[in-house]
Every structure is written in C-alpha cells, then in structure tokens.
C-alpha cells in the first residue's frame, strides 16, 4: 500500500467512525481505522495459519501480530520463534508471553485480548464458535474456509455475520477466488448476461490424496484427532467441504446464491486400502489400545474418497460437483454453461460474446488480505460471512445427500436439518475422541 492510498482512507475514517459509534462498536474498531496500527491475533498456528498471517502482514505495513493461539503449546511457541527469525516480519512481531494461548478454550482467551483483527485457521469444526466469540468481543475476522462442518455450525456463522454487520465488523473468508481480479471481472459479465441464462455447470476438485498424522507423545485421543483432523468428518467436513468448497463457491457465485436441491452418490474405497495409511492407523491404535491393533479401523478416519453430486439451482439448472482423492485423473476447475455461451469461470467467455481478461492477475490469497485491511481502514467493512456460510452449507448438503442417498432441498437443509456433529465446548477436554462409523450411503437423514 502506498502512502497516498493511506491518505485517501483518512477522510473516510471520520465518517466511518461516527457510524461505528452509532452502531455501538467498541473502541478498538475505531483504532483499526485510518492509518494507525492494526493489532492481529492468529488462531490456529498450523501451515495455513502461518501462511495466512504472512499474507496478512504483507498486505499492510501497519499490521502487528500480538497474540497466538492453538490447541497445542508447541505450535504456538514454534510459530513465534519462526516469526522472530523472519527478517521480513520480525520487527512487527510483538507477542508477549501472556499472549500465547493454548488448549481447547484458546479461542475464548485470544478473543479477550486487545487485538483488532483475528485470523482463524484451526480445523473447521471449531470455526463457528470461534467466530461468534470473536464478533461478540468486537474483533474483525479473517477466516479460512470452510467455516463449519455441520448444519448447526453454518447457522451459527450466519448469526455471527448478522451480529458483525450490526457492530460494523469485517469478516473476510479464505475463498480467494472471490478476490482475483480476473474472476471478479468475468463474473460481472456472466451476471450481465453475456453467456445468456445459466443452464448447466461443472466443478471439480479431484486430487491425489492428503497427509495422515500419527499421534505425538502426550496427546490424548481427542487431541490426536484434532491433530489428524482431515480424516474425520466432524473436524474437516470431509474433502468436499474442506477443499472442494472453493469450486462450489464459484458455482454459487455464478448463480448468485446456493442451489435449491441436492442429489449425490459417493463412497470410500481407496482410503480404506492404502497400506501407508493403514499402517499409520494401526500404530496410533496400538498407542491408545494397550498395544493391540484390534479396532484399528476407527483410527483410519471416516471421510469418503469420492462424492459425485448434482446441484439444482433455483432456475432449474443442474450442475455437477465432482470431488475426491485417489490415484487417477486429477481435476481442479470449473465451467459454466449458458444459452449464449460458456465460461471457464476463470478468465474467458466463449460463444456469442467472446471475451478474455487482459488485466492484471493477482494472487487471490494476497489480495483477500489487502481487500480486508483496506475495508477495515476505510470503515466500510467487507462482510462475507453469510455468503461463505451458504457455500459451506452447499458442500455439507452434497455430503449429506451422498451419505444418506436422499434428495432434499435447500430450505429443508437450512431450516429443518438437525445435524450437529461437533461436541459442545464444555465436552472439549483431553480424553477419548469422537468416533463415528463410516457413512453407508443410506445413513439416516437428520
């Protein structure tokens, strides 16, 4: 950000500050506006959290990191050590010992510190309660995707977003495609009717696989599950929710909202037969099962390895969502089909009104932080909460349709589903994990 950019944001600050006061916003929101320092706390110190923090600090020189939180103490300490060794950022690392938080309630502690902005990058299961705590405490938020793993979580995100709007707080989410200039320009044209009425579409995230993490010394079973979170539906939301949400979000973007109806098939074949993962699962089993391998399957997780879903949007268009992990052909893109043309959902339109984006390409993962911080400084905050809750719920809806084999509509999912997979906060303490069996394809619809 240049100096003149910062100057431009100043006049807005005054007007915005007035509005913020009227909306009952708390004092540090006002602090974050204008050109002053923005104090940042990071919640979730894994790979994505460390990446997001750097991308955030890069977005604005006025950002200082003042607090870190994670389930594990070691993660918090090593993250601070690494930051202090990083020449690019170390001058803006101001983390006191009493601003290192760990444990299952670390999100509550970091929400109470004097940070203006919290970056959230823990396992998705906890996001909704973290977001609620942060918004209640008056923090701006950057949150990684997805924002929930069950229907109850999505509803809580929607509530928190509403509250954020009332309080004038920003919520930006790590679906970075929404911040790429090429896609933003393209979507304007699609929404302007350049490819006609949307009648079909496809989106894909079919990859080769994911890590499996064994249990470290001293970890309880629950802590190990949180460490190896990808493999449990209650923690990650399954691959369709955790990864494929990016592409699903693009589909929803095209249609300007979520689908009306869900149908899906899917299953788990490969994950149950990979030798490396089986051996790791057996090792973890021995650790928690007095050296016995009996019942090792539950340590192999319960997420599926493929889901093939159909979204029917409100105008009747039926779109494909194709996701999973295994050897085979890999695909990671989108396509949208209209009555007058098609688009790659990236930078091109084909058909009656051909177009190709020739502007500047930016890295969406940087740009989302630039847009967020700019919006905070201007006082005209971005709030992507409702939208990312809807896209997360879209992915969860497809997963539920696949797990149960049942077709249902959006309004049932949003209003009537009782799905609630994440243990209550008071149940989150070191001890046995939350194990559910692998979905059968005809699980009960709740």
């Amino acid at each position: 950000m240049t100096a003149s950019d910062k100057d431009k944001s100043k006049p807005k600050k005054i007007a915005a500050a007035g509005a913020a006061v009227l909306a009952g916003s708390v004092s540090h929101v006002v602090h974050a506006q204008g050109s002053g320092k923005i104090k940042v706390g990071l919640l979730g110190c894994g790979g994505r959290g460390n990446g997001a923090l750097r991308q955030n600090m890069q977005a604005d020189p006025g950002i200082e990191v003042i607090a870190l939180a994670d389930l594990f103490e070691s993660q918090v300490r090593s993250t601070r050590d690494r930051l202090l060794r990083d020449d690019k950022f170390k001058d803006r690392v101001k983390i006191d010992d009493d601003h290192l938080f760990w444990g299952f309630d670390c999100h509550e502690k970091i929400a109470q510190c004097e940070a203006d902005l919290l970056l959230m990058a823990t396992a998705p299961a906890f996001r909704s309660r973290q977001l609620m705590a942060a918004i209640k405490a008056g923090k701006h938020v950057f949150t990684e995707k997805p924002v929930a793993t069950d229907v109850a979580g999505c509803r809580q995100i929607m509530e928190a977003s509403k509250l954020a709007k009332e309080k004038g707080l920003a919520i930006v989410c790590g679906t970075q495609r929404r911040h790429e200039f090429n896609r933003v320009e393209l979507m304007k044209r699609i929404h302007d009717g350049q490819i006609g009425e949307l009648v079909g579409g496809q989106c894909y995230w079919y990859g080769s696989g994911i890590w499996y993490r064994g249990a470290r010394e001293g970890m309880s079973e629950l802590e190990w599950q949180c460490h190896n979170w990808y493999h449990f539906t209650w923690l990650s939301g399954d691959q369709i929710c955790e990864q494929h949400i990016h592409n699903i979000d693009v589909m929803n973007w095209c249609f300007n909202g979520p689908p009306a109806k869900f149908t899906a098939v899917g299953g788990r074949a490969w994950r149950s037969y990979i030798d490396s993962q089986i051996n790791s699962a057996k090792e973890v089993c021995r650790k928690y099962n007095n050296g016995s391998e009996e019942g090792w399957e539950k340590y192999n997780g319960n997420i599926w390895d493929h889901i093939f879903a159909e979204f029917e949007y409100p105008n009747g268009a039926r779109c494909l969502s194709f996701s999973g992990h295994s050897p085979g052909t890999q695909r990671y893109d989108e396509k949208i089909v209209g009555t007058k043309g098609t688009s790659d959902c990236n930078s091109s339109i084909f058909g009656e009104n051909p177009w190709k984006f020739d502007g500047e390409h930016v890295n969406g993962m940087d740009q989302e932080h630039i847009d967020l911080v700019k919006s905070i400084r201007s006082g005209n905050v971005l709030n992507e909460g409702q939208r990312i809750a809807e896209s997360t719920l879209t992915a969860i809806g497809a997963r539920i349709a696949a797990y149960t084999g049942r077709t249902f509509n959006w309004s049932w999912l949003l209003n009537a589903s009782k799905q609630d997979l994440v243990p209550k906060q008071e149940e989150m303490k070191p001890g046995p994990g939350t194990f559910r069996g692998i979905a059968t394809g005809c699980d009960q619809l709740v």
Partner: protein
Amino acid sequence: MVKKQKLTRRELLKSSALAAGTLALTGAVVPLAEARGSDTIRVGVIGCGGRGSGATHDCMNSSKGVEIVALADAFGDRLQGLKKEFKVPNNRCFVGLDAYKKVLALDDVNLVILATPPGFRPKQFAAAIDSGKNVFMEKPVATCPAGIKMIIEVSQKAKEKGLAVVAGTQRRHEPKYVETMKRIHDGAIGDIVSAQCYWNMGELWVNRRQPNQSDIEWQIRNWLYFTWLSGDHICEQHVHNIDVINWAFNNLPEQVHGLGGRQYRTGPEYGNIFDHFGVEFFYPNDVRTISMCRQIKGTTDNVSERVVGTKGSSDCCGAIDGENPWRYEGPNPNPYVVEHTDLIKSIRSGEPLNEGQRIAESTLCAIMGRESAYSRQQFNRSWFMNRCTLDLLPPDDLKLSDSKPVPPFAIPGKYELPGLVQGARRRRG
C-alpha cells in the same frame, strides 16, 4: 413440424423394385423369406429367466402368427415355466451352457430371443446370425470392449444377410420418446448444451450361494453381481438412460470420467460390482453430461433423463419447455410389446430393423463409465475401443462345474485398466 423423411423413404422403398433387388443382392436367406408376409414367426427362447419369460410374453402379445417352438437355458428349473405355458415338447427344450446351439440348429426357428446374462450375448448373437436367425436381444449386449467389437461386426453381417436385430432398449419404441426426439432433432430446444440421466433405486434380487454349487453355477444364477456377466449395474440397467442421451445427441461421448464404489452392498453375495456410479460424459463440443446410478436400499428413487438446449429443455419423454413448449398427448402403448411388434413387422415387410450397432454403442458408453469409475481415469472413447484390451468374454469351453474365483472389486490405484499406459490418455475437451 414433424420430419417424416425416414418413414417416407421406407414407404417408397417398400413398393419399389429397387428394394427387392437390393435384398436379392445381399442374399437374404431362407428363414427371412419364410418369415415374410403373414408367415408364422417361430421363436426360440435362449435364456428363460425373468427377462426371457417377459420378452417371450411380449413377443407373443405383439403380433399374430407367433409361436414359441424351442427353449434353452443353462438350468432345467429355469426353463419349466415357459415349457409348460407354451407346451414346448421335451425334444425342443435344451439345458446347459451349450443349449443355445441346439436351438440355433433347428431350421424352423426364424427368430431367437437372447435373454441370457449379458456376458454371453456377443458369442450367442454371433452364433444366431451365423445360423441365419432374426434376433431380439436384451440389453446390455456385452460387458467388455471385446464383446462390443463382436456385436458391431456381427450386426454388419446381419445387415448383409438381411436379418433383423432389435434390442431391448424399449424407449426407442415408445411413442412419447419417439415423438419427443423428433422434435429435439428438429431443433425445438436448440443446440443441446447440457444433459442428465439417472437410474437411482433400491435393491434387486440376490441369490445367495447354495451348498454344492460350483463357482460358475452360482455366478450365473446370481449373475447381476459379477462384472463379467452383467457388466455391473451401470451397464445392466442404466444403459437405458445412457442410450436416451446418445439418442438425443444423435452422437456418442468422446470422453468419460467416472467415480463409483461399493459402500453399502459389501457382502460376498453381491459379487464384485459397485452399488453406485457417478459418471461425466463429454459429448462433442465439450458438452458435459451427468450420469448417475445407484442400487442402495432406502435411498431416493429417480429413473429419468433430461436434456437442455439453448432454446429450452426436455424430459425426453413427452415434455418440451422453453421457446417451443409442447406436450405429448398421443397413446402410450406398452413399449415392451411395441418393440416386438416393430421387429416382427420389419421381418415380414422384408425391411429388417437392425439396431445392433446402436445398442453396441450405448452399451459401450456404459462400459466406459464403469471402467472409468473402477480406475478413476479419464479417457477417450477412441482409446477405449482401439487400445483397451479388456476381454471378459467367457471361454468357448466354459462348463457349469468350472471354478472361477470372484475377482476383487475395483479399488482405484489397485485396479488396472488393461492396455492403459500411464499418462497417455488425458486430454481435455
């Protein structure tokens, strides 16, 4: 509005000397000549199970002058129902894996119904055409590319011999489909840009293994659940819907990418087939379509097709919405009977229908979907037809007492697609 080009041409040919000349030149054989006009259609039924019996009744009900004169089945007990009903004499009822040869050897039989498990179809079809019989064959017509090639080749031979070949994809004979397709082909919905088809249902019958049954006897009695016999349920059932989409496009997909698995139906009685598939077919101009099929109890049913064009959409069976809205309001005769009416009419008129190539192609698409799901590889149809060496055809000397261990169900990364060279076939449309 309705194009009657084909029909008109056929009517013209019928009355012209040219048609007779053509037939003579291609050397139409004796049974065809006998079957012409009001001559009796003498049917041999090969495969007397549920579908064979159903087809036999439909054939009898379709036209006058039809007689059931010979029966064949691998098992004596499966043959009893039709034998009693149609009073077929003992010396015309044949049992065993080679029973079909004995029916085909009967000179008076001029139409055979092939309704054994699909894995046997290619060789039985070839033998039937060799023996100069007209053929009604149930779908699907093969379970592997080797079988598909055989069907296509033999269909060509049938054409040369003037023999009729009709397949049990009855939607092709159902007026509401036929009338809708005419309009789609005439452009009522514009260019097709998207399509979907489904066969999502609960469970089918299963025959658990009995004591003292050989591998082969059990597998044939429980044929739905073995890929070499049924082609898996995407092939065995969903071929109907895939065929409709091919019909709408008047074309075949160029590429396929599928997913699938065995999530609910995991017991040994279910052999080695999957219980769900989700397949994407890529038609020319990168038009991508959804094919979804499932056999899992308690799930939502949906057996249907849908095509979407630049000017509207259609359910393929009586409704067009969009710029040219239309509803079919004509009669709805039983299509399982109509397919036999059309077949017998075509034999008697001397202009035999030949659906062999077409049903081979639709079966091929279903097999491609299956193999893509088994391997999770995307590939081209041309690769599959020309380079894939998958051959599940039963050996000529197969015996009921043979042992044949059930191959493991497909697991991506472990399942090998025969003829696949890694990295050779990936191409985006």
